[in-house]
């Protein structure tokens, strides 16, 4: 049984239109900037917000189909992990996990035994009597996850599950969550604004901007071939739209790029910032992709320096990113406003139909 959601939600001036499917065993990530409508989508599927039109169903089982059908959250077979977990502070960790089972009619003793077993699977047996307030961020996250899983839901919804953790725990918890989702045979829908979470956890990404899907596909596909500025930024690529004729692409924003492989028509041109080199003078030997540029900004990354460049005096790609070594920064005496020449290796360029 597939989860099918055709969501249309109107809230004031904001309009959300999403069509989603999640297969059993599949992890789908909704990825997008803040305010893109991801939370609205997850709330609609959870039954916390009725949709304006469209339908949500699991197999043939209708959950929401205005104006006839609306099943409230407590009657949908779901488990939700909220961004800040929302563990009940007046209940122990064990009682939190047992809550869903109790609410669905399991006798008290059975529910508690079951909850204890779930806590054991995440290594939190000794915290069974602990109140959520006294748990660390990572522990609270695990309690929230098993609380959602304890009722054996058909659909698991994760709303920014790692956003509340500090950087040092995130790495560990993310790996653990990934394993756990791999073992879960229901459907998982994950909402996040962190591309790394999405890439690691999901089988398929759905990118949302301004309430609309802008791109959809496997993480590797999206990482290699972004289709919007936002996605390109997420995966750290330079991305341009243009018209190809043979090996020459005329960019919509100005400038041309010579590619290694020929193509025709409307295309995207993508390349990593590391494929760009900077020279104080126009390099000899005339590489074909050379543009006079101007330094707009310099940012220190882990082992490289990212330089943001804008065209200077001649047609060139708008807003170009280049990654260079710290040593190169010293050689070039980089300062904002400085004029440079940027070259690009044709072999590192991806072109694909727009």
């Amino acid at each position, binding site marked *: 049984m597939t989860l099918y959601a055709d969501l249309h939600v109107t809230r004031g001036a904001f309009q959300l239109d999403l069509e989603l499917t999640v297969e059993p065993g599949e992890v789908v990530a909704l990825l997008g900037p803040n305010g893109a409508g991801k939370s609205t989508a997850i709330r609609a599927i959870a*039954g916390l917000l009725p949709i304006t039109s469209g339908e949500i169903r699991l197999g043939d089982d209708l959950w929401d189909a205005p104006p006839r059908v609306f099943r409230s959250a407590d009657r949908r077979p779901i488990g939700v992990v909220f961004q800040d977990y*929302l563990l*009940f502070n007046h209940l122990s960790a064990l009682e939190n996990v047992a809550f*869903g089972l109790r*609410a*669905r009619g399991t006798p008290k003793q059975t529910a508690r035994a079951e909850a204890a077993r779930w806590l054991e699977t995440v290594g939190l047996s000794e915290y069974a009597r602990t109140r959520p307030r006294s748990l660390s961020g990572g522990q609270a996250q695990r309690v929230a996850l098993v609380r959602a899983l304890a009722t054996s839901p058909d659909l698991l*919804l994760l709303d920014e599950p790692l956003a509340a953790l500090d950087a040092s725990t995130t790495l560990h918890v993310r790996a653990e969550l990934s394993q756990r989702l791999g073992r879960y045979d229901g459907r998982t829908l994950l909402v996040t604004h962190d591309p790394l979470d999405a890439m690691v956890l999901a089988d398929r990404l759905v990118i949302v901007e301004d309430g609309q899907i802008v791109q959809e596909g496997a993480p590797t596909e999206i990482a290699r071939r972004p289709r919007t500025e936002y996605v390109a930024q997420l995966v750290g690529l330079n991305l341009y739209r243009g018209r190809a004729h043979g090996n020459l692409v005329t960019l919509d924003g100005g400038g041309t790029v010579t590619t290694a492989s020929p193509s025709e028509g409307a295309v995207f041109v993508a390349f990593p910032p590391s494929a760009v080199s900077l020279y104080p003078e126009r390099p000899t030997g005339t590489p074909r992709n050379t543009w006079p540029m101007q330094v707009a900004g310099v940012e220190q990354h882990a082992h490289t320096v990212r330089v943001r460049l804008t065209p200077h005096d001649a047609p060139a790609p708008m807003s170009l990113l280049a990654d260079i070594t710290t040593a190169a920064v010293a050689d070039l005496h980089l300062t904002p406003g400085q004029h440079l020449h940027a070259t690009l290796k044709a072999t590192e360029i991806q072109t694909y139909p727009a």
Partner: protein
Amino acid sequence: MTTHITRRRVGGRVPLVLFVPALLGLAFLVVPLVGLLAQAPWSTLPSRLFSVEVGQALRLSLLCASAATVICLLLGVPLAWLLARAELPGRGLIRALVTVPLVLPPVVGGVALLLVLGRRGLIGEHLDLWFGISLPFTTAAVIVAEAFVAMPFLVISVEGALRAADPRYEEAAATLGAGRWLTFRRVTLPSIAPGIVAGSVLCWARALGEFGATITFAGNLPGRTTTMPLAVYLALETDPDVAVVLSIVLLAVSVIVLACLRERWIGALR
């Protein structure tokens, strides 16, 4: 250095314009109570304290105030929930109506109760006719009068707690399969417990001190409707020393209850 000096001056000196009235205000609140204690007939206090009338009035007062608080809890908490959570047309008007007894002179409340629940009253007539129940001038009437006057305190306090509570916890409960009633019992109620306790204390204290509505609606029948405040008022005419003793007892009870509840529940849950 400069910031340090400035901060010291700002924090250290209270302007006289504020300090003098503040001190006067404090004295105004405390001096009458001190006077009460100073005037008490301490030597004869134990014998008067354990007299029949005092015991009777005290027992009746505690019983009625507690019963009224229970009624207020049973009716007031759902009312507060309705005001805070339900999408109600004319909610502002309903809230205004709830707070009317708060500003209404209690005597007027008593008259109103008499007109509605009295033997010739709108509802009282039928109560008498069909069930042979007559409320006025009974202990039950004391409880009704006290509940009428005290309920707004509870409703306002609980509604405030409900508004401050994060409704997303209720959503979390819903996604775990809990219906609205279960969610209310197991998630909402525990989270607003401090507000309910605080509201109950206020409500109980108000009921304990209730005078106007009680004497109007329930009269003054020793052993049946003469609560402590009524007894104080009566005694003042006949035997002022007894009035002082009764007042001290009321004062002590209020202080003890407030102190206990603050320490044990309000403090622990905060």
